[in-house]
């Protein structure tokens, strides 16, 4: 049986809407709510991290951003050979970005758990960070 465009287009549109709806449900159901940040399988609060790491201010196209220096953070939590690794920042909503050690030197983690890097696209700025995976 041949189905004309008059029928197939609304069917595809319905499928597209259903994909969007189910994705929205999935995203809400899988969102992780926690107040700590997992770094190298250890849990830290943002206040703890601020206590033992150096703070620095970087300049971004959205102005100055102050926070924990990411290169110092990696050093302070005892990761040997920081330059050998890559670092994946994971957000509450599932968003994640992986950066190399060169970018870590340009980045800060703010007290509202957002990562900024100077001179980079906003795609790399992860908000509501809940985990930093060392790879």
């Amino acid at each position, binding site marked *: 049986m041949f189905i004309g*465009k*008059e029928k197939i*287009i*609304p069917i*595809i*549109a*319905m499928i*597209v*809407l259903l*994909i*969007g*709806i189910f*994705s*929205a449900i*999935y*995203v809400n159901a*899988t969102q992780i709510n926690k107040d700590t940040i997992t770094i190298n399988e250890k849990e830290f609060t943002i206040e703890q991290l601020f206590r033992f790491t150096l703070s620095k201010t970087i300049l*971004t*196209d*959205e102005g100055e951003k102050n926070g924990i220096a990411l290169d110092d953070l990696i050093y302070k939590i005892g990761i040997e050979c920081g330059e050998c690794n890559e670092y*994946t920042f994971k957000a509450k*909503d*599932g*968003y*994640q*970005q*992986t*950066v*190399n050690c*060169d*970018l870590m030197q340009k980045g800060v983690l703010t007290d509202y758990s957002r990562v900024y890097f100077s001179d*980079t*696209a*906003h*795609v*790399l700025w992860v908000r509501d960070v809940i985990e930093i995976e060392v790879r």
Partner: protein
Amino acid sequence: MEKNKKKLIAGIILFGSLWGFSEVLLGSTLENAGISSGGIMTGFFAITFLVASKIFYRQPGIQLGMGLIAGGLRIFNPFVGCQICSAIAIMVEGAVFELIWYKFSFDIEKYKTYTIQMSMGILTAFLLYVSGYTITQILTPILAGSGFYFENLVIFMPRILASGLLPALIGAFMVPVIMQIKKLDLTVKDDLYYPATISISVFCWIFVISIWFMMA
């Protein structure tokens, strides 16, 4: 150059410039107000300019060109920093629209029912937004020097698909509205068409570039 070709090129530049201009001014204003502009800009403005140009010109390639022009103008966006991501996303939106409507454009007159028009709005806005968003997530990390990681995209894909819902719903409303243009007689004489298209396009570019220089 053929008269018809000149007219098409002027149309590409006009609609592309208007699209880019709206992205720069309104998109940035929404972003600064803390409103995520991507879905709204695609659902309202991208769909409006792309569908309107399709109705006016009914030739393949117009929307691809519009995407390049609008993306080019977006690079000069003085208000937010991620110019290259937005520019790429707009260019991809133009190309995806071209692909979706390639077949549709030749029998556009056949689709008179609201069901078809709304369905095309949903389909087009959703696919435009999702593809622009996805390409941005692939290309921007590469351009930023951190490299592309496939697993990062896969994990984030449900979020991208979910965010396509808003533009899809806006598109469902916008396409039937824009289709009403067909009922109007909008024939413009050549001696008005070229000065109007060129002056509006030049205004868009000069306005954005001069703000860019002032804010640099």
